[in-house]
């Protein structure tokens, strides 16, 4: 008997929590019109938009977020706490409000938007706007997680590498990055999921091109629930592989005997 002893109560509570968590997804299986399963016009275009632009956003987040995360993990300076709070600001702002703020800055009348517009670069309702919205949605998650990963790498490793002749950049590439890899992989997976699923910010500044979340909303408006379920299945199929593969890889990594 598994549930013998006082631990049984906690296992029951845990199982209950799990059931509550997965109940909506079990419902999805039940309510999907499997016999008349059909995609709406524009669904596949939305999938393409979501996948390619999210990959683009991910590249930008990793390229700029990684140095920032490393700096926050390593540097000790006055006002560090303030910088850390600033990084979290987009994360704690309600997505709709964040979208409005971005529209105020990058919209045609906003300072950054007007400047870019003069160069013929429009930052609302364009692929650039879509990517911009996703960057703001996912970057804080990436930076916070990556920072924790870097903090897990003992400083001594880098110092030894320097005494062995490595420059700062070289020690980062040869020591810090490989040692923090598992955590960074988790950060990328988290950022991918966050960016792919972002609705609020995208809705405000990039209604077009339509990615999966906005298209789900449009389908709901135009076609009702029947238009939502097929696209939702596609969303899961698109979103899950990356975190799953990365998760498996990192789990294999941690299983190495220490």
């Amino acid at each position: 008997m598994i549930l013998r002893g006082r631990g049984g109560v906690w296992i029951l509570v845990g199982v209950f929590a799990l059931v509550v968590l997965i109940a909506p997804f079990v419902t999805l299986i039940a309510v999907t019109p499997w016999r008349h399963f059909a995609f709406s016009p524009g669904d596949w275009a939305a999938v393409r938009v979501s996948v390619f632009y999210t990959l683009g956003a991910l590249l930008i987040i990793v390229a700029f977020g990684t140095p920032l995360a490393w700096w926050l993990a390593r540097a000790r300076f006055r006002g560090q706490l303030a910088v850390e709070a600033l990084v979290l600001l987009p994360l704690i702002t309600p997505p709709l409000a964040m979208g409005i703020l971005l529209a105020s800055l990058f919209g045609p009348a906003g300072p950054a938007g007007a400047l870019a517009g003069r160069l013929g670069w429009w930052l609302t309702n364009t692929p650039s706007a879509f990517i911009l919205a996703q960057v703001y949605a996912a970057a804080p998650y990436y930076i916070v997680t990556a920072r924790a990963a870097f903090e897990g790498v003992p400083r001594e490793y880098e110092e030894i590498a320097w005494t062995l002749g490595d420059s700062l950049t070289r020690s980062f590439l040869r020591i810090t990055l490989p040692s923090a890899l598992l955590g960074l992989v988790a950060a990328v997976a988290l950022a991918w999921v966050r960016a792919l699923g972002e609705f609020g910010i995208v809705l405000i500044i990039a209604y077009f091109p339509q990615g999966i979340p906005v298209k789900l909303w449009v389908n709901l408006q135009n076609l009702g629930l029947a238009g939502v379920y097929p696209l939702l299945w596609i969303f899961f199929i698109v979103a899950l592989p990356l975190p799953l593969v990365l998760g498996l890889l990192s789990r294999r990594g941690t299983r190495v005997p220490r």
Partner: protein
Amino acid sequence: MKIRYRIRRPVRLAIRCTLAQSTALVGPSGAGKTTLLRALAGLVPAHGEPWAGLAVQKRPVGYLPQGTILFPHLNVWQNVAYALCGKRHERRRRAVSLLEQMGLRSLAERRATTLSGGQARRVALARALAREPRLLLLDEPTTGLDPLSRRQVLELLAELEERHGPRVLAATHDPVLAMRAERLLVLERGRIVQAGPPEVVYRRPATLEAAQILGITNLLPVTIQRHLGEREADWAMVEIAPEVRLLAPWPSWARPGIDAWLLVHPEHAQVFPGSRAEHRGIDARVVRVTRIGASAQVSCRLGSSLLEVLHPLFHSTWLPAPGARVALEMAPADVHLLPRSPADSSACPG
């Protein structure tokens, strides 16, 4: 090799010392031993000679911090080859040959995370040596190891010295490592308070802390009474207890009337049956007797202090029993006075 360093943070240090082929750096915890090593490696800003203006990467030093030190994502030979340049197979060949020289060939393909503490430390030494440094900085190289691993690391360091490898500066709490070095530096209150061959420092430590770091506990509180000048030596008459007096070499900081510590090493005191009336010594009571091979360690109580005496059993068949009254004798040239209050020791010969 001379070192002249001034460090402000994290510990304020003003260091002037000379390094021998092998040098041990001892001092109380927090005195700045690690800081000095890190400053020499270029990891802590410092002013002085040598290399103070040089970047970490350009300094001809190897540095081994305390604790876990191998890169965990590399295997053993990749760790050793870390500083080597060239093609992969060439780096591997050189790393493996270095491991072979150090008797670690069999570990070459192992993952760094699967080694024992002692193995990891020896591999880390090989990694530092691969770059052919002029000075090897070791932070507590034998701390936290099991006795066998500790001996292997000590052996490796001894071999390094015999092969005229790089100079070694090791910060340590390990008395064996300290006593094996060619030169011993005592770091205290931000500077080197004593430097010299370990035997000399052990025999005549300059301060109470230096004595304690070397594991010396045979200290009696005394009062210096007067100065006795003779033709070739100056002597101090010290009082251990009312009417119990001894002679000791007169230290330069001594003044009549001040308190001091009297140090007598266990091997320099002798214990005799009976009381001092029959001998020239001082009265004591035996507390404990521990036989160690061909000698016995006799703990004697003198007033409020305990004194250990190493009593050889080759010649005498007499072994003092706990509780027995005995007389202790020590030659005036074998005892040593240490300043008793911290203020006194600043006048010590460094």
